[in-house]
């Protein structure tokens, strides 16, 4: 018995739409099996995890709060991966964005005017862009693998953050807790309930990127370089420029996400700070089929996996670490289902394979 892939004459449009849903269904089934193995009623557990949060107001708000950074980062990553540029260090760019935004309240706690909010957000973007520019530069100048360098920089960013927040930036009146002063007034983002302005940024970013990717020359260039690099080069598109563009874009968005997160949720910098948004956004990008609009829905769904984890912890007494398992399984199923878009899968018996080989 063996698995045979038959290339389709052209991409299956039906499968392109269906595959994320198949992946989702498979993940839910796998989740049910995991719950059953832990001795829980799978249906009840799945309800608590995936449905119950949607019935409560606070959870719906949290969903959007958590989805905002995922969508911001994920839409940038979707552009990267479309262009075959592998930025997997968004978590580091996110942390640096938060750090640079936090610099203002630390050094100028008394600065209060609408300007300060803009400056902090801008610093977040600049920080993320700068951190993203490092792997891009190393790739262009020394052809160092951007996957490895961008990931290594995540650790560097986290240690830098840890040092500043425990050391020079620690709140002198903070009873020795590893945190900075509280942001105040204009240093915080406006909120509607718990939902802060980051959600708006996320929506704008994904719509703008969708337009860039599908209606503008830049998007065409990136898509060509991603799917047929040689053709792209003959067309005069520079893959170096594309690498730099993608890293600056996704780094900037990740930095903005980091700045919005500390300005909208915690209102201070505290260590350890590892919400893992930068890594989960990789899953978001793929679940959204590398389409910025798809990323919006994917971001909401992955946000649900965070909230579901919390609600499972409360109601079922299991650790919220289960969320990470679901996220990992989901990405696996997404990648597996994507095969169906380009190929038809047939299972052949051993005999059929032999006759084929003989004939």
């Amino acid at each position, binding site marked *: 018995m063996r*698995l045979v*892939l038959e*290339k389709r004459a052209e991409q299956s449009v039906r499968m392109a739409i269906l595959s994320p849903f198949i992946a989702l269904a498979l993940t839910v089934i796998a989740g049910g099996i995991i719950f059953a193995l832990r001795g829980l009623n799978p249906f009840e557990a799945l309800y608590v995890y995936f449905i119950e949060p949607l019935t409560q107001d606070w959870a719906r708000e949290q969903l959007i709060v958590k989805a905002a950074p995922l969508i911001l980062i994920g839409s940038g990553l979707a552009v990267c*991966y479309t262009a075959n540029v*592998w930025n*997997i260090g968004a978590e580091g760019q996110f942390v640096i964005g938060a750090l640079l935004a936090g610099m203002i309240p630390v050094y100028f706690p008394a600065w209060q005017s609408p300007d300060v909010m803009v400056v902090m957000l801008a610093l977040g973007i600049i920080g993320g862009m700068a951190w993203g520019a490092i792997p891009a530069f*190393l790739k262009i*100048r*020394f*052809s*160092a*693998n951007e*996957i*490895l*360098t961008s*990931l*290594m*920089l995540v*650790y*560097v960013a986290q*240690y*830098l953050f*840890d*040092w500043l927040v*425990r*050391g020079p930036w620690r709140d002198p009146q903070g009873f020795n807790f590893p945190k900075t002063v509280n942001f105040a007034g204009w240093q915080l983002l406006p909120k509607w309930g718990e939902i802060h302005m980051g959600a708006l940024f996320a929506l704008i970013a994904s719509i703008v990127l969708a337009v860039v990717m599908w209606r503008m020359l830049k998007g065409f260039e990136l898509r060509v370089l991603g799917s047929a690099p040689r053709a792209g080069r003959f067309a005069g598109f520079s893959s170096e420029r594309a690498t730099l563009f993608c890293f600056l874009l996704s780094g900037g968005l990740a930095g903005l996400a980091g700045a919005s997160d500390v300005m909208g949720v915690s209102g201070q910098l505290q260590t350890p700070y590892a919400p893992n948004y930068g*890594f989960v956004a*990789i*899953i978001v990008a*793929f679940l959204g089929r590398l389409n910025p609009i798809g990323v919006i829905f994917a971001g909401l769904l992955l946000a649900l996996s965070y909230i579901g984890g919390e609600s499972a912890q409360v109601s079922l007494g299991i*650790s919220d*670490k*289960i*969320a*990470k*398992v*679901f*996220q*990992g*399984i989901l*990405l*696996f199923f997404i*990648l*597996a289902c*994507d*095969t169906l878009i380009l*190929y038809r*899968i047939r299972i052949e018996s051993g005999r059929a394979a032999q006759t*084929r080989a003989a004939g």
Partner: protein
Amino acid sequence: MDMMIAVILTIMTAATPLLLAALGELVVERSGVLNLGVEGMMVMGAVCGFGAALMTGSPWLGLFASIAAGMFMSLLFGFLTLSLVSNQVATGLALTLLGLGLSGQIGESFVGQPGVKLPNYDGFDPLIPFAILLAWGVSWFLFKTKAGLVVRAVGNSHASAHAMGYHVIRVRYLCVLFGGACAGLAGGYLSLVYTPQWIENMTSGRGWIALALVVFASWRPWRTVAGAYLFGAISILAFTVQTFAWGIPSQFLSMLPYLVTIIALVVISGNRMLTRANTPACLGQPFVPDR
């Protein structure tokens, strides 16, 4: 003198997990497959090895469980990338995310438990020479045996190897499984020898450093040994400096291995002669046999 030996021993124990994982990945990449999931396989090896040793009381059975866990994870990767021709970069990332998530879940009850330590002779454990022996074995296999030639052929031109009648997919499956076994063992080394306990995410990027080591060693087993020991020395240096407390914040010393990895990648990748001659030509490219 005793101090000297102690330092060398700690360097060796720091280098061995990197070396084991890198050697496995080296074979995988020589066959043309890029498995970025080393971190995930390693962390699963660490948690399963720890758990098995805890339950059976035997660290040796723990090591076997580590190997099995690594192989299981690599089989998932192999099924997706080889049978379903999914994107290797994305699938490797998925493997790492899944491994980190699953291991946290499996190891929940292991946190804080005293582990079982592999017996050693004055700090010299049997896996140190084993890793070096493995480097010799990999080198011999790749460059002195016919099977090794087939692996390299598959990695350099899968279409030609297929035309010659070799089973590209089967060869790659075997290499991926070997890589998984090595990464699992490396993880087991961490939780049974290096720090005999379970801490979530205890691999802390070592799987990624192992990946960088393969590039650094330009896909050569003996250079991998040299690279791993160099990295081991650097991470120990960080610890030593910390104890002397020269006023450098500990966070900067903890950054050191990652910064060194970046610098090493830059230095080696900038040298086109060195990398181009040894990089498997089909690295990361999917293969679907046409008939």
